Every structure is written in C-alpha cells, then in structure tokens.
C-alpha cells in the first residue's frame, strides 16, 4: 500500500505548481474576470499543450499520464482557480480518442497540440448537469439542437456534441456560432448557450457514445473533485495566514479558539477530500470495479466540503473577505461552479448509494 505521491508524481506536482505560479497566478484569473476579451489565456493554453498537459487523459502510447496525474494537475489548477475550459478540453480530447475515423483523429491531434479548442457540448437543461438522453439530432450530415453551458463555446474551433444518434463533431461554421452568453457569478468561466443547425461529422454510434459519455462524466467528476481539493487547500492557507497576522484585542485573531476550531474543521473537510479524490483517481487508474462508486463518493464529498471551506474563508477574513479585492470570493465562485457541473451533488449521492456495497447485499 502507498498513498503519498511517488517521485514522478511529486515532480509533476511541483513543476505544475511552478509553471502555474509563474504564468497563471491568480492575477490571470482576475484579468479574465475583469477584462480579457479572449475570455481565457490562449498563450498559456498553447504552452500547456506544448508540454503535453492537454492530452493527459490519453492512453500512455498517445502521451497520456493517467487519472492520478490528471488529478494532480487538476488540483494545482484549482489552487490558482485556473481560468478557461481546461477540464472540458481534456475531456473532449479523451472522447475523440475513443472514436474511430479520420475526423476524430485529426481534431484530437489539433486539440492536443494546442492549435484548436475543442470542447464537449453535452448539457441541454439549464437546471441540471446530470446525465440525460440527448435531444439534439444528427441527420443528413447536420446537427440540430440546443446546448447550454458550453464552456467558452463562443471561442471553440469545434464542439463534440452529444446527439440521439451518437457523438458528433461540429466545426465552427463560417458565420461563427449562434451562441448567447450565459453569465454566471464565476466571471472567469464563460459559458454560452448554442443553437446548432450546422454541418457535422458523426463520430460514434449511440452505444459507443453512451459508454464514452459515461466515462467522460466520471473523469469530469474526478477532475472537478481534484480541482475542489486544490481550492480547499489554498483557501485554508489564505485563512490561516490572514488570521495569524491580523490582530484584534492586542493578539492575532488566529489565537482565538473559536477561529482555530473553524480552521481545524476546514482542514478535516479538505484532507478528507484529498483522501477520497486520490482513492477515486487510483481506482480509475487501476481499473477497479468500484471506480464509478468511488468517483461519486469523492464528488459528493468535495462539493459540500468545498462550499463550507470557501464560505468559512470569507467569514474568517471578515469584511475584507467580502470585497472583490481579496481572493476568497474567487474560490467560492469556482467551487460552486465545479459542484454544479459533471453531475450535481444530489446525483452523485444517489449514484454512490446505488453502487454502495450495503445496497448490493440488501
């Protein structure tokens, strides 16, 4: 048995942290939130693709590193609330790798090397990201339908779209996407609703597509859990640093037991998320039978835990915690975003229950 990262994994973690601290520290996220017309830092995405990060979920022969490495990178991205559709890009590349045919291969290669942005367009219901049968249709070389909450869809070079006939690839039409912004409170994640009536290529039959989408949901949930784990870790660091400095009544407020116990509770939530997320990543990597169960356990834990930790970070900073200038709100917003996507907490709780050993025996 071994839990802690091995040498290669630790190196991946430290080099990713260094890279992101240098290139994508929180100011990047702020600039996306506040001004960037591009919506996400394309230069950094190009750099990440060049270093092989975009294809992390590919098979080993295609340059992938597996779910544990993916979780490590996702966690580091969480620490800086990394802007842009990195998770969705990784999932789209993985989906394309599961489809046969030249179109899939071509777009997979372009997305992995950073020359094209491809994201998954799956959700159709404004009120749910839980798995559902797609209403969009593929017929006669065209996709017709509506997709919502497509991350950075306005800038995508192609969309991988779930349809009743299977996964389809829709290249950006010459006239651009028929997209309308869906502006959430996380301004560093830009979503659009897309009306599709465009030329498309069918990538896989319904059965294969369903399998691939189930797998993408699991990996998406794992990636979201891992990001939340990094967000919790960073939020707690911020809270502990602030309460150790800030003085009231002549002492650092972090010496008050009420605040210490709050921070201890935050640590319990955050460390438990780490245990559950890496256990799920390990299960995915080793092909364990209970991987789907353990991923749902991790995500069902990380969402509420993350809300608690990020909410308390704001509380512990007091008034400044409620200002735009200080950082905790960026994490609160991101963690809520992550909780809402790749299956809601409610869905993952139910999915954990369905797959639980105690129910199998009943």
């Amino acid at each position, binding site marked *: 048995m071994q*839990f802690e990262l091995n040498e290669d994994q630790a190196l991946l973690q430290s080099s990713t942290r260094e890279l992101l601290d240098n290139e994508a520290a929180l100011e990047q996220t702020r600039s996306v939130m506040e001004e960037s017309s591009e919506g996400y830092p394309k230069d950094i995405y190009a750099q990440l693709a060049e270093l092989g990060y975009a294809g992390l979920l590919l098979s080993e022969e295609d340059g992938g590193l597996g779910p544990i490495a993916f979780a490590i990178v996702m966690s580091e991205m969480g620490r800086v609330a990394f802007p842009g559709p990195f998770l969705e890009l990784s999932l789209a590349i993985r989906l394309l790798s599961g489809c046969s045919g030249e179109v899939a291969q071509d777009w997979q290669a372009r997305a992995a090397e950073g020359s094209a942005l491809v994201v998954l367009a799956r959700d159709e219901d404004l009120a749910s990201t839980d798995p559902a049968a797609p209403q969009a249709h593929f017929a006669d070389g065209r996709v017709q339908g509506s997709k919502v909450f497509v991350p950075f869809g306005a800038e995508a070079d192609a969309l991988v779209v779930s349809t009743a006939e299977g996964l389809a690839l829709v290249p950006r039409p010459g006239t651009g996407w028929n997209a309308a912004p869906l502006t959430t409170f996380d301004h560093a994640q830009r979503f659009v609703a897309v009306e599709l009536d465009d030329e498309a290529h069918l990538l896989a039959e319904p059965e294969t597509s369903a399998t691939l989408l189930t797998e993408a949901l699991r990996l998406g949930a794992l990636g979201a859990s891992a990001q939340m784990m990094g967000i919790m870790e960073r939020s707690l660091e911020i809270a502990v640093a602030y309460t150790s400095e800030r003085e009231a009544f002549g002492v650092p407020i972090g010496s008050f037991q009420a605040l210490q116990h709050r921070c201890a509770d935050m640590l319990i939530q955050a460390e438990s998320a780490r245990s559950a997320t890496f256990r799920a990543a390990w299960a995915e*990597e080793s092909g364990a039978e209970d991987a789907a169960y353990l991923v749902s356990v991790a995500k069902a834990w990380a969402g509420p835990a993350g809300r608690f930790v990020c909410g308390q970070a704001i509380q512990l900073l007091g008034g400044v915690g409620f200002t735009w200038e200080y950082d905790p709100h960026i994490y609160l917003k991101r963690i809520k975003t992550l909780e809402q996507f790749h299956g809601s907490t409610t869905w993952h709780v139910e999915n954990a*229950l369905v797959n639980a050993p105690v129910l199998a025996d009943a």
Partner: protein
Amino acid sequence: MDLQFSAEQLEFQQEVRDWIARELPRPFADEVRDPAHDADSLVEVRRGWQRKLNDAGYLGMRWATEWGGRGATEVEEAILHAELNRADAPIVPNFLGISLLGPALIHHGSEEQRRRFIPKMLSADEIWCQGFSEPSSGSDLASLRTRAEPDGDDFRITGQKVWTTFGPWADWIFVLARTDPDDRHGGISFFLVPIDQEGVEMRPLKQITGESEFGEVFFDGALARREHLVGQLGEGWRIAMTVLGYERGASTLANPADYERQLGGLVSALKERGELEHAAVREKLGKLVVDNEVMRANGLRTLANIAAGIAPGPESSIEKIFWSEYHQRMTDAAVELLGPQGMLEARSPNARTEVDWAYQYLWSRAGTIYSGSSEIQRNIIAKRVLRMPTAR
C-alpha cells in the same frame, strides 16, 4: 499510489474471515438481546471470545512471538480488526490492557514484568483497567494529583481515578501517579496495582446507557510494589504518551467496517418497511454511505502511510473527530428514519434485531469525549498541523 491489499494480505483477510465464521457463535448484538444474560455473564462471553482469539494468535499481533504475538504488520492488524467489526464480534475485555499496557511493558517494562503479566493479560485470566483520568484531570491529564509516596522499598498510592473502563471486572489497574509534585511531566510514574487489596475501592458508575461499563477508583494508601513500577521513577508521562500513539493503525479500517455493518442493518430495515425508494430516505442514506466511504479513504491513507514508515501527521486527530462525529450523525439519522421503533431497547418486544439502535444512539455520545475530546483534537490540529498562533 496503491491502495489495495497485497496477495498475502488478501489471503490473511480470507483466513480471518473463515476463522470468524467458524468460531464466532453469534453476533454480540444477539448475546446482548438474550434474556439469559446479565452484565456479568456478558463479560464472560467476552472473556471466552478473547481466549479463542488468543489461542488462534490474533491478540497482540504485532508483538514478537516471544510475547505471544506473531510479529504481524499494522496492515494485517487493521484487516483483523475490520473483520471482527464486520462480524459484530465481542470486544475483548482486555482491550485496554492489550493496546496500552502490553506495548508499555514490552518497550519500557522489565523482563520479570513481561513474564509475570503478559500471558495472563492475553488469556484474560487477569483483566486490566486504565487509571489515567481523574475528576479534575481529563483533557489536562498532566495536572493529575493522585500521588505515590515511598514506603520502605514500595509505594503507597492515594487519590482518585475515574472513567475506568471495565473497572468493575478488573483485577489490576495501571496507574499514572505523581511522585514529584514540582515536576509537571517528569514527576509522573507508571505503576501496576492489584485491585483486590485494602486501600482500593472500585465503585461502578452508571452511564447514560443504563449500564456500568466504567467506574471510579479510590486509592487510600494502596500498596504498589517497587517491582511493579514500569520504567524508572518519573518516566510515566513519556511511557503513557508513547503507548497512546502505538495503536494508531488498528482502528483505521475497523470503524468504517463497524458503521457499514450498522448501515447494512438500516438498509434492510428500510427495505422491509418498503421505504428504500423514498427520495428523502435515499438522500439521507446516500450521504451516510458517502461519509463512511470517505472515512475509509482516510483510513486507507493513514494505513498506507504507516506501512510506508511515514511519521504520523494530522491523520489521527482527523480520524478521531471524523468517526466519532459520524457515528452520532449516523445513529441520529437511523433512529429518525426508524421512528419510535428505533428507540426500543434490545430486549423490548418488537425491537429491531439487526442493530441495537437505542444503545448505539446513546453510546455514540461517548466517542466525542473519550480518548481526547473533539475539542482537544481540534486544538491539536490548529496548533500542530496548522501552526496557528498561541494565545498570549
């Protein structure tokens, strides 16, 4: 990263599972429900079970064979404890002697002490209780005031100990007593004291469960022989702190196994009542499943780190808070879901038989108090893990 058991460990798990299936007559909950039993005869059930475990070599597993152990690893010990809980096996009456005193004697005791005490501790011919806490010294244990004064070559002990688990049935007590009033930590020594003597009075204390599983002990010049001092004079605090950290692996998988069994009981009760498909029920049950599985993830992580020889981190305080507060949440939810029937005591007509919910509900209140209260555990996390500032 590797969170699965090795082939040998899986083999050991199967061996233990088979052994329990063969040797355990019935779950302990069934013993408790049996009207033929009283508190004393239940202790005898536990004593008998301890003897079986001892004969099979499942006690003090990590100790050297010389001392009745088998030189097993922490992982194997954790597997054993998880399997015992899965089957609702009785808790052995000497669990405190074996987990605390045994390691103290092996690491700090004399050869004579080991030969005199360990075999009878393992065979349950002598039952031990722990004399650490006092009425005014719980969380602040080092403030203890029970004193041991020289009397010729020996010592006389005067003072009071409390929350003495298994005290009402114990033959011996291991006691932390003050031998130097001016040295807070260095003035504490570790003594082995027979209970059946003048100068020792054991009084059972009735708990909120109605039973008297613990007691209080009054020492009035009780005799502690020089040869029953463990380690040197003034080493008691260090020995106690060392042994308290010794068993950190055993519980890692045992608690989630115990609670999973209880959850299984809840599931079958709800199924029988036709309520398993209700959305509100499923949400509650699902959250309990998730939290228990997260607890197991924490446990696997701790165990893996122990196996890799990584120094203990924040895990043990996190684990303690997690399981004790979880058990309260879980029994709260279970009793609520089962309605008034969930409050029926084990021997009441119509009580549910899968789990003694009434007892578990009450017993869960103890976990956040004993072995370092949740408040003390949070202090430890804030100070030692988060390094938050100390109050001036």
